[in-house]
């Protein structure tokens, strides 16, 4: 059946793209503020439809056990000559992307008030979202590259949204230069791999590795370039230098999007490359890369200690979280539940990051900067939002009973099981450093009183309030119901 074979598996991606195109058309007809409600509805409709399609498709996709083993998948889920694979991993990540998109749209609508180009922002977000979906489901190196570009190009624009703000422009330029450099590295790696193996299919390359360990300089160079490209995209040290500037300069709701959805897509890419293509060679790369991730964790945590701006603080903390996540990618080879642990971590971290940046947008709305002092007294002035922030901070620090602890624990025990003992010890010890700076934020939130009355935080718009509350409750819900286990 033609519908079955062609449209259904890609329907989650198509619904995002369709919504974006409709938005652009709408914008040409109803310019500016007119019909804003309708435009928002269309924008929200994209991810909602996408989530609906994914939830219908997931039971089918779950038949394929792991990312590596697609033989049991119904063949019609493998689209375009295996360039697009809707397996269990992509299903789970599609859901997360759709959900993160919804929250981002709500936060953008609530907090980027006075922005003329809101519809374009919606459209760009939706395009980036479709790029992410294609990225995490790519089964072919060329597809991987195209999806990465589709995801990155709209993001560069989104970062530079505040044209008159020097910071924003700097951030956009930096992000663009670093990002395109990373893409170049990826293209070069793809070229080298194609030259070596004559195929672009991930599964085909992986099949070749099963029989022999490649030793050629070109292949090794390709691996190195792949690692660098992925490192850039997910913000691993030493490729992390763009992260703090881009996260700080971007409009705050957009930063939330970058830290949650784009990070998730980046790790989707990492899982496809390391957990699927290079998995047969896991013995060769697991240990060196685990030190790489421990290095990232330390760099992120140590640099975060010195920050005085909340956005930069969370940028560095997101670097250290990337390190933990990468530890999960490394244990894909040696531990049966590493994929579940990774999905759990990505969900939890994405929600906590989105919630935090929703809150920060609210604080920023009134006060224009995000020094720590701006939080003084917030905890008691706005009890519900303050409590949510407390949950996000505890979760980011990995303190039970919040979900952040469970996500960290699952990753660490998987890594320990896969034999990376030293790295686990170091990673766990490093979270002590992390706790210190999160506690400093908590101390501003609750333990210092606000100086003057004018320092108060405005009431949050209803939709945004609900969004933040949802993220906060998720921090508790996920710890009682560890969904992926």
């Amino acid at each position, binding site marked *: 059946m033609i519908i079955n074979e062609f449209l259904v598996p890609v329907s989650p991606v198509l619904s995002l793209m369709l919504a974006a195109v409709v938005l652009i058309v709408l914008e040409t007809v109803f310019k500016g503020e007119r019909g804003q409600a309708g435009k928002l509805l269309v924008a929200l409709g994209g991810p909602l439809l996408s989530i609906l399609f994914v939830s219908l498709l997931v039971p089918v996709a779950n038949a394929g056990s792991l990312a590596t083993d697609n033989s049991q998948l119904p063949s019609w889920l493998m689209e375009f000559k295996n360039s697009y694979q809707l397996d269990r991993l992509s299903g789970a990540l599609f859901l997360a992307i759709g959900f993160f998109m919804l929250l981002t749209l709500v936060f953008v609508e609530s907090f980027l008030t006075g922005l003329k180009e809101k519809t374009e922002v919606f459209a760009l977000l939706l395009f980036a979202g479709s790029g992410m979906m294609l990225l995490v489901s790519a089964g072919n190196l060329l597809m991987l590259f195209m999806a990465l570009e589709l995801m990155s190009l709209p993001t560069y624009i989104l970062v530079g949204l505040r044209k008159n703000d020097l910071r924003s422009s700097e951030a956009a330029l930096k992000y663009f230069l670093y990002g395109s450099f990373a893409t170049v590295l990826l293209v070069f790696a793809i070229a080298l791999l194609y030259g070596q193996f004559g195929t672009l299919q991930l599964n085909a390359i992986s099949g070749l590795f099963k029989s022999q360990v490649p030793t050629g300089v070109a292949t090794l160079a390709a691996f190195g370039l792949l690692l660098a490209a992925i490192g850039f995209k997910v913000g691993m040290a030493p490729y992390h230098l763009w992260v703090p500037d881009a996260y700080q300069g971007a409009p705050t709701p957009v930063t939330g999007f970058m830290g949650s959805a784009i990070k998730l897509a980046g790790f989707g890419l990492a899982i496809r490359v390391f957990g699927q293509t290079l998995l047969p060679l896991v013995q060769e790369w697991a240990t060196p890369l685990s030190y790489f991730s421990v290095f990232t964790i330390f760099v992120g945590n140590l640099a975060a200690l010195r920050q005085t701006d909340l956005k930069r603080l969370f940028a560095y903390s997101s670097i250290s979280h990337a390190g933990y996540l990468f530890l999960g990618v490394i244990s894909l080879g040696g531990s049966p539940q590493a994929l*579940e642990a990774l999905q759990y971590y990505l969900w939890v971290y994405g929600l906590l990051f989105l919630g935090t940046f929703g809150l920060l947008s609210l604080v920023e709305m009134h006060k224009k900067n995000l020094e720590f002092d701006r939080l003084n007294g917030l905890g*008691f002035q706005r*009890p519900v939002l303050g409590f949510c922030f407390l949950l996000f901070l505890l979760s980011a620090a990995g303190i*039970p009973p919040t979900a952040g602890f469970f996500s960290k624990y699952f990753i660490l025990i998987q890594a320990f*099981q896969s034999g990376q003992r030293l790295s686990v010890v170091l990673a766990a010890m490093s979270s*002590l450093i992390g706790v210190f700076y999160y506690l*400093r934020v908590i101390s501003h939130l609750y333990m210092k009183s606000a100086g003057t009355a004018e320092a108060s935080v405005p009431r949050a718009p209803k939709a945004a309030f609900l969004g933040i509350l949802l993220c906060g409750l998720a921090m508790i819900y996920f710890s009682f119901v*560890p969904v992926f*286990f």
Partner: protein
Amino acid sequence: MMSAILVSLCVLPIIGASLIFLGPEKLARKTALAVSLLCLALSIPLYFGFDGTQSQIFQGVVSIPWVPALGIKFALGIDGLSFPLVLLTQLMLPIAILASWHEERNPKAFMACFLVLSSFMTGTFLATDLFLFYVFWEAMLIPMILLIGVWGSQERIYAALKFFLFTFAGSLLMLLAVVTLFVSYKTQTGVMTADISELTKVVLSKEPILFGLNIQDLVFWGFTLAFLVKVPLFPLHTWLPDAHVQAPTGGSILLAAVLLKMGTYGLLRFSIPFGSESFSRFAPLIAVLSLVGILYGAFVAFQQQDMKKLVAYSSVSHLGLVVLGICTQNLEGLTGSVIQNINHGLSTGALFFMVGFLYDQRHSRLFSDYGGLAALIPWYSFFLVLVACSSMAVPGLNGFVGEMLILLGTFEANPWWAGIGVLGVVFGALYTLTLLKKTLFGPVTANENRSLKDLSWRETVPLIILALFMLWIGLAPGFLINKMKPTLENYWKKPQSAYAMSGNPK
């Protein structure tokens, strides 16, 4: 029945805290007190329902799957080790709440913190799943740092951060030990579990891997360091004076009476069963450290000008004695330690309560501001003398029973230790009497003190209850000891099998 009580002790306070969060500010204190009294009332059937003749078995077992893939369950149960501490927690909670009655800054959040803390503390004692224990153990820190950091005195934020970082550092070591146990069990049996009794069957390799220590030693030290920070044992005690002095009265009471007990409880429940051979090897080292702590705590306490600091350092000294009792590895020492754990909770809790009473009225904890109170507030003075006597182990009161047994056991294990330990008891009398002399006796030095009010019913009732327990344990400790006798008698025979027969469904 028992299971229902255990679950309610864990869950009720959290429900109470949510009610306070949603309810009006006026009712916050009353709701908190009502919930805490309800928990206290529940512990009466718990006392009578607990079968003291059974050892090596958890009673009132609850077990709900939580993360099946990793063998983690929400499992609660009670045995002779946790039984007295659970009761102590329920007893001290209403007292801490009454001591905090006058706090005007955000009373809703304040009361909610107490209830949540109580929930987590009870859970820590009741958990029979190692992972659940860790979750409660860590979660407990959150309400505690909020209590210290939000409602404390001048240097509260520093004290709160220090408290958190010290305990968290210890906890991370414990987490690594826990992970090691889980993974070793998995490699030996092929399944994951977090059940304590199952995990004691893990055989850890004896091959030295780091500085001559083998894996069992590392697991042992991972647990032990976490617990010794909490105890706190010299030289890991530096967070304690800061935390105690800065914490609000109610926080200090719970910190001293319950939180510190988790250290010694953890040693008995986890460190020793999981590393019994390592413990035998390192017991002398720990004993020496606790002797140093006993003397050091006593000397420093003697030098203090601040009442709360004096009580805080006295805790270092007293808990050193408790750890010493465990290090003797004999029945007398162990029994003494377990009793002394409770005694210290009662007497130090009461001391903090009384210091807080003065501080609420005069906003000073310095000896120089007091003196001659005996003539001004006689009832207060009466209770302070009584509590002080209990703290310095006057015969007839609870402290004597515990210290006597510990010293007996210590003498049996090593007479030299006992000789030094006795010195600690003597110095204990010295600083406690100094406390009495400088506050209660002598001439009235400050005229502001003449307007001090004596105890009202809100202070008298808790003090009478505490005093009754002090007398009861002092005169007839059997009511407590008999409930845990078999557990203690079997403890040293084979610690790792202490839970082997636990009634947990597999």
